[in-house]
Structures are given as structure tokens and as C-alpha cells.
């Protein structure tokens, strides 16, 4: 009995040591505990899929307000959804023009976004809430470390997505929207406005492979949580421009790439005061900390590298945008050693 008692003690000690070792090893493998897909029942996905189906086939009008840091200082806009025609944004202030997005085949993109959301986060049904006096079901996307990355509100009666919010790792509300005054049925439609639609040339996996073989940087993932959900192309002045859309299911990062280089004498300004970069990555530091737009989740960046010009537009938390930008070829440095390094790389010596 006593012998058995002595021999029984080392086993838990060894198991504890083994468990501790595993814990240390797994901890070393993942420097950020939330940089892994979150596990969970994902019972909120059914709510979101029903909402995606309902939003495409339900006519409604509402007033949209942008929320979070990205929405500060913006005016509300009337949103009109007309199945078969698309979505119209009609400004409620004088001097602004309506904007129409035609009813493009977004179903596949929606499904890819939902699949990515389910892969990256634990998507749970958080129960009923209330938005503008109407009952709404709340769905939460939770990171592996338990922090909330995003919330969705789905109108309980119509299934329309009436609100969403994206939160940064520090809990800041980065961007989102909320619909108020939801009215089912047709509303005012700006017939005089020709709608915009995504570029029509959808790149198939085989076409993406051909582009990669010709030197285009078009990875399937920019980060573990940023997957390629859509890739399209068009021609500008007879030259191909590729638009790659990366997403974690909550936010989207658009990467535009085209062959060429930037003009040294040209500085391109974009709205919101963000400024593109000049030749040699002027105005861009290797850490990319000077090209993030300071408008809360809105980001514009432009640089050239290895014979391509990259333009990144993102509505996403800064950490997600940073992951995307750093995964792309960095801005070229025009210094001597950078040029030598670039030459050695081209000669196959590096």
C-alpha cells in the first residue's frame, strides 16, 4: 500500500511537468494568444446567413449613420434597397450627389465573407437586443482571447442587417453603421444616377496562378486572419490593374496592384487628407507608421516595389491593416545598398 503510494506520486508530477512543457512550447509558438482561430459553437452564423438571404430580397429604406471613429463628423444618409436594382445612398444634406451600387452578384462574396468570419472568430448568438425601438438579434464575433472583435444586429422581423460594429484589440470602436427609421417597401430611387458595380473581370484561381507566375504578388492570405475573398481586374490606359480583396469576415482590405513606377514629381492626394507616396517610398517608413490614415479605421497607402505600384485602401482596425501592408513587398529604398540588394535578388544571389 505504502509502496503503491510512493510510486503513485511521481506520475502526477511527471504529467504536470509535461503539461507545463507543452504550455511553454505552445506559448512560444504563438506570441499573441489571440493570433489563432477562435473555437466555438458558431451558433450565430445561422442568424447571419438568414440575414444575407433576406437583405437581398427585401425592399426597405432607412437612415444610415456611420458609427465609431470612422463615422465621426459624417452626416446621415438615406439608404434605399431595391431588389434587382441595388442600393442607393441619397444624401440628406444639400450639395451631395446620390450614389448607387447596382445589384451585383454579391451572393458568392457574402458566402466567402461568412466562411472567413466563421474560420477566424467564434461567432455566437448573443440574444435579443433593441435597435431604434425594434427587436434585433445580436451576433458577436469573439477572438481567441475572449475579446469582442465585432457585433451584428439583425432586425428580428425583416432579417435586415440594421447595424454592425468593428472593435480593435484594445476595445476601441473603430467603425460601424446603424440603420434607423427602417421602413419596409420601396422608397425614393434616384433614377438619374447610373449605378456603380465592381470590376467585371473576376479572376479565377487559374488566372491568379498565371499572374503569380508573371511576378504579380497575389497571395491567398496576407495574414493568418486575412484571406483572399475576391480578386478582380480591369484595364486602365490599356494596362491591367488587379484588385484583391482580403478580409477577416468583419473588415475588408483592398489591395490594388499594377505594373509600373510612380512619377518622382507627382504626389497624389486622396480625400480625407491622406497622401500617397512618391518614388522610392518617400513619406513611408519601413514600419509603415507614417502612412496610416489618422481618420479612425480609414487607411490609404501607396508605394512602389519591384516594378509594381501598390495602393491599399482599408476600412479596418490598424492592426489588421498593418498585417496586410507588411505582408506586401515593402516600399523601395533608393539607397545604394538597397539597390545592390535588389540587384543581387534579381541575379538570384539572394
Amino acid at each position, binding site marked *: 500500500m505504502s509502496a503503491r503510494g510512493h510510486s503513485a506520486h511521481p506520475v502526477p508530477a511527471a504529467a504536470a511537468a509535461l503539461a507545463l512543457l507543452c504550455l511553454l512550447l505552445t506559448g512560444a509558438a504563438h506570441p499573441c494568444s489571440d493570433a489563432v482561430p477562435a473555437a466555438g459553437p458558431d451558433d450565430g452564423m445561422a442568424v447571419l446567413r438568414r440575414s444575407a438571404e433576406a437583405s437581398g430580397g427585401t425592399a426597405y429604406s432607412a437612415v444610415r449613420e456611420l458609427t465609431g471613429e470612422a463615422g465621426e463628423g459624417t*452626416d446621415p444618409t438615406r439608404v434605399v434597397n431595391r431588389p434587382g436594382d441595388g442600393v442607393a445612398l441619397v444624401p440628406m444634406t444639400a450639395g451631395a*450627389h446620390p450614389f448607387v451600387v447596382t445589384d451585383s452578384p454579391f451572393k458568392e462574396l457574402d458566402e466567402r465573407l461568412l466562411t472567413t468570419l466563421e474560420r477566424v472568430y467564434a461567432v455566437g448568438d448573443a440574444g435579443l437586443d433593441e435597435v431604434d425601438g425594434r427587436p434585433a438579434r445580436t451576433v458577436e464575433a469573439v477572438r481567441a482571447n475572449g475579446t469582442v472583435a465585432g457585433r451584428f444586429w439583425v432586425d428580428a422581423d425583416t432579417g435586415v442587417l440594421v447595424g454592425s460594429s468593428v472593435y480593435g484589440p484594445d476595445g476601441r470602436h473603430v467603425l460601424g453603421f446603424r440603420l434607423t427609421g427602417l421602413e419596409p417597401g420601396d422608397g425614393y430611387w434616384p433614377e438619374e444616377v447610373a449605378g456603380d458595380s465592381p470590376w467585371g473581370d473576376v479572376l479565377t484561381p487559374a488566372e491568379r496562378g498565371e499572374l503569380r507566375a508573371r511576378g504579380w504578388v497575389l497571395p491567398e492570405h496576407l495574414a493568418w486572419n486575412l484571406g483572399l475573398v475576391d480578386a478582380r481586374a480591369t484595364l*486602365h490606359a490599356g494596362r491591367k490593374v488587379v484588385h484583391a480583396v482580403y478580409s477577416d469576415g468583419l473588415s*475588408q482590405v483592398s489591395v490594388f496592384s499594377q*505594373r509600373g513606377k*510612380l512619377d518622382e514629381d507627382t504626389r497624389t492626394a486622396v480625400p480625407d487628407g491622406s497622401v500617397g507616396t512618391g518614388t522610392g517610398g518617400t513619406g513611408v517608413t519601413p514600419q509603415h507608421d507614417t502612412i496610416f490614415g489618422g481618420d479612425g479605421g480609414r487607411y490609404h497607402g501607396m508605394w512602389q516595389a519591384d516594378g509594381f505600384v501598390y495602393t491599399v485602401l482599408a*476600412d479596418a482596425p490598424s492592426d489588421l491593416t498593418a498585417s496586410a501592408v507588411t505582408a506586401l513587398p515593402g516600399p523601395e529604398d533608393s539607397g545604394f545598398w538597397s539597390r545592390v540588394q*535588389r540587384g543581387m535578388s534579381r541575379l538570384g544571389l539572394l
Partner: protein
Amino acid sequence: MSREHLGERLSALVDGELGPVEHESALIHLAKCESCRFEADMMRRLKRRLHGLGEPEPDLDFMGRLVGLSRGDGPGGPDRGPSEPPPGGAGFGARPPLGSSRPLGGFPDAGPTPPMAPMMAEETVVAPERRARRRGERFSQLFPALPGGRYAVAGVAVVTALLGGAFVAGGETGDTPVVEPRLSDFAVEHAVTSRFIPAVDTLPSPAPSGPGPDLPTR
């Protein structure tokens, strides 16, 4: 004398070293003595063949060592410049090469007077080689104290060529067009695909149709 063979005088006859009287009597003997005539003929052929072998070329390494000895350890000492000849006359290589002096028995086809034109031609041929050798000596003096100086020079040359080649290869390729991305189009495309459409008044107006600002400028 006519009964005695010429002996050692035969060699002097072939070399043209006999006096007029002895030369005449030797010729008379040769006219009568078949064996001496045969021997003289063989000796002349041998002399002619030896002369036709050409000039011996000195070994370059051996010559370099000789030059080093004459420059550093010779009686002239280190005060003498590297291009100056050693004391006592012309430097090594400045003199006619061995075997180019007047051949024994005189030149077979030109009489007793040695021809000067070939020697002048040899001088003009040898001079550029000698000047190049002197330049090499001057360059080698840049690394007098390094035992592996040649390897260091070779290493520096290789690294310089590598860096230069990489610098050239790392330059901009000539066929890279200058573009100005159409940010207005990009903003609309991003808004449409993300469907996170910002405030309407912040959206850029649609890009005009036709060639845009990103036309290649060269």
C-alpha cells in the same frame, strides 16, 4: 701543307678567322683534299643549322626574379628607380638576347659584316613588352608588405565586380512605365466591394471616361 690535313685550321676557316695567306693556302688544300673538303662542308652545315634555331626566350618568372634582385639587392640599391637600368650598362633585356650575336663563321649569306637591321627590329619588338613589365612592377609595389597581396587584389576586384553588377542589375528597368493610380476609381471599387460605403460627399466623383491620368509618360 698540301699533304697535311687542315685540323684545327679548318674550324678557323669556317669561322673566317684565318689571315689572308692562311686562308688562301687552306682553300688550295681543300681543292686537293677530299676529306678536308667534306669535313669543312659538314662544319658549315652544322653552323648554319645552329644559327637557324632562333633566339632562346628567357623564362618570365626567372626574369622577374632577376629584375627583383637587380632592383632590391643589387649594388645600385633601393635609390635607383624601378625603371632605371642596373649599373654597368643597359638593364636586363635591353641587350640582344643570347645567341643573337654575330654567328660563328659570319652570316652565311651576307658576308663578314653582321646585319644591323634585324637587331633594330628586335629592339622595337622587345620595348613594349618591357614597358608593360615595368608598369606591372610599379603596381606590385603598392602591396610590398603583404604576403598575400595578389590574393587581396583579386578579392577586391571580385567584390567590386559583384557590387557593380548588382548595382546595375538593381536599377530600374527601362520598360517600367510611370503610372499614377486612379485613386477615384479605386475608392469606388473598394466601397462597392466592401459595401462599407462612406459618407456620400466624401466619395470621389467617377473618373472621366477615356485615357486617365495613368497614361505612361514615357
